[in-house]
């Protein structure tokens, strides 16, 4: 990974609040234009990490660099380079949508403020309501306006804390499309979310956090690491001999029979699937179709959480067990 492309660099990042450890030893580099999903249970340190990245909190130890600036040295420059969408929209309810944006635009020294306010209000379908107090807005409209506020100064980095939380499906879709559009513009986005389907769809890489970084990779690679590649062989009839036959190959690590299907975990399916089909057909099986079984990211996530809990139980066995 070249340093020139690294927009967010966290090195051995730790943050404590008194005796409470919020984040420990987090090292993660995010490249220009990447969309990285930050997953983890409540209290995993996601919001603390985001706050450290926008220079709202100082790390207890470790280093943070954002957009080429070092936290603790160039905090003002970091804040100018980052757009933040916090957990709650945090808008001034008695002010109009346009005035809210104009106020924040002034705080960010946005050139052509009027033009930018109009651009984003139109883009997010809020232009017709620009003069209404935002206290009269729906939750979805508030979230859209908060996103407009985060991008108004055209930041290089966007930190989005649960951008679709509590939104109806239509508003969620609009927000997701907007994030996709921002990603296509080449912005670097760190997205904290509990919506795993959303993370799977939007993110180039997923980082799973529970105080420590548990895993980071592309969604596909995480699936493979957790479950290997699974292929479904739909047969007219699944006999025990077919299972024994498939299990005999050294590139196959597991075989499950599910009705008339064989679910096979194997290495390099592109190369080995034809060999299995050939063997099955020769032994009398009628293969109706072959397809890859795509594990849900939720299974990957839950698998990782179970693994961590198992490790914790081993390290600190409960006296009641």
């Amino acid at each position, binding site marked *: 990974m070249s340093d020139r492309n690294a927009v967010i660099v966290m090195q051995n990042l730790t943050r404590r609040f008194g005796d409470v450890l919020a984040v420990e030893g987090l090292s993660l580099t995010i490249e220009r234009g990447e969309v990285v999903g930050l997953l983890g249970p409540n209290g995993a340190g996601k919001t603390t990490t985001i706050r450290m990245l926008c220079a709202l909190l100082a790390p207890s130890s470790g280093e943070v660099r954002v957009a080429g600036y070092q936290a603790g040295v160039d905090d003002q420059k970091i804040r100018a380079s980052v757009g933040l969408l916090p957990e709650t929209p945090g808008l001034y309810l008695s002010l109009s949508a346009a005035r809210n944006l104009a106020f924040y635009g*002034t705080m960010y020294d946005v050139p052509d403020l009027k033009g930018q306010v109009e651009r984003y209000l139109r883009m997010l379908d809020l232009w017709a309501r620009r003069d209404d107090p935002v206290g009269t807005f729906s939750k979805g409209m508030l979230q859209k306006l908060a996103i407009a506020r985060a991008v108004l100064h055209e930041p290089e980095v966007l930190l989005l804390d649960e951008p679709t939380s509590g939104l109806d499906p239509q508003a969620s879709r609009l927000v997701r499309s907007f994030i996709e559009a921002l990603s296509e513009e080449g912005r670097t986005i760190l997205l904290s979310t509990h919506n795993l389907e959303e993370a799977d769809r939007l993110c180039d890489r997923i980082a799973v956090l529970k105080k420590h970084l548990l895993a980071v990779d592309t969604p596909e690679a995480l699936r493979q690491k957790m479950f290997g590649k699974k292929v479904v062989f739909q047969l007219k009839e699944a006999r025990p001999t077919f299972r024994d036959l498939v299990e005999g190959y050294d590139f196959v690590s597991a075989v499950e029979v599910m009705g008339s299907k064989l679910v096979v975990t194997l290495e390099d399916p592109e190369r080995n699937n034809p060999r299995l089909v050939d063997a099955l057909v020769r032994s009398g099986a009628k293969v109706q179709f072959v397809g890859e079984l795509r594990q849900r990211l939720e299974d990957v996530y839950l698998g990782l959480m179970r693994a961590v809990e198992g490790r914790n139980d081993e390290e600190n066995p409960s006296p009641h067990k």
Partner: protein
Amino acid sequence: MKKIQALISKEWAEVFKNRLVAFTVAFLPLLMTAIPLVILYLSNAEDEFQDAAASDLPAQFTILCGGLSTPECVQYFVVAEFLLLYLIIPVILPMTIASYSIVGEKSTRTLEPLLATPVTTLELLMGKGLAAVIPAVLATWGGFFIFYIGVWMMDVSERVAGKLFGPLWLLAVFLVGPLLALAGVSIAVMISSRVNDPRVAEQIAGIFVLPIILLMLGQTTGLLLIDERFILWMAGVLVCLDAVLLAFAVRIFQRETILTRWK
């Protein structure tokens, strides 16, 4: 400077939409102006103090009455007691405005996105502070101006009017007033960091009016003489107090402290 102006303008747009704040800012100076004017009017119209004797006054107050007849001195004494109300306005108003502005931002959770902008802590504190101090000082001065017009219209003796608008009260209103307002804002910032209801912040802040009331009582009972020297001393003490309070307020008003310790 543009950011401070934007902050002040945003604060006013938000805070003055709260009817209680708008009412307090408009009503309190009018009330505090009406009281001495009514006293002055009654004492003027009914010649109430014609039979007053110098023994009716705290002995040391007569020092301030150089050039006044005894009835005029008594009239000045009674009105001067209520002129101290002009020192209560610059304490109460900034506390009310700042309490609603800061606690309001806490409860609507607007502080985090604001703190994430490149605005400096000093700009933020100045914006919030000036948004509370300016209306308070202007309201105090406005009330005092109405009092001046009232005195002019009431045909009060020139000598009494000369005392009422002499250096003592001009120093009190135009020098001590803004210094008290600054102390009020700093106290409001400190209280606001610990409470989540602006009304609670306002009630706690109300305690800080007590020293002014004690000044009134001190002069009435003759324990204290509020003359020019006293006012200048008061200004000096307030300058030091403001510096200490402001240092505390700046310390409390740091991004990290606000996010992690303000409950």
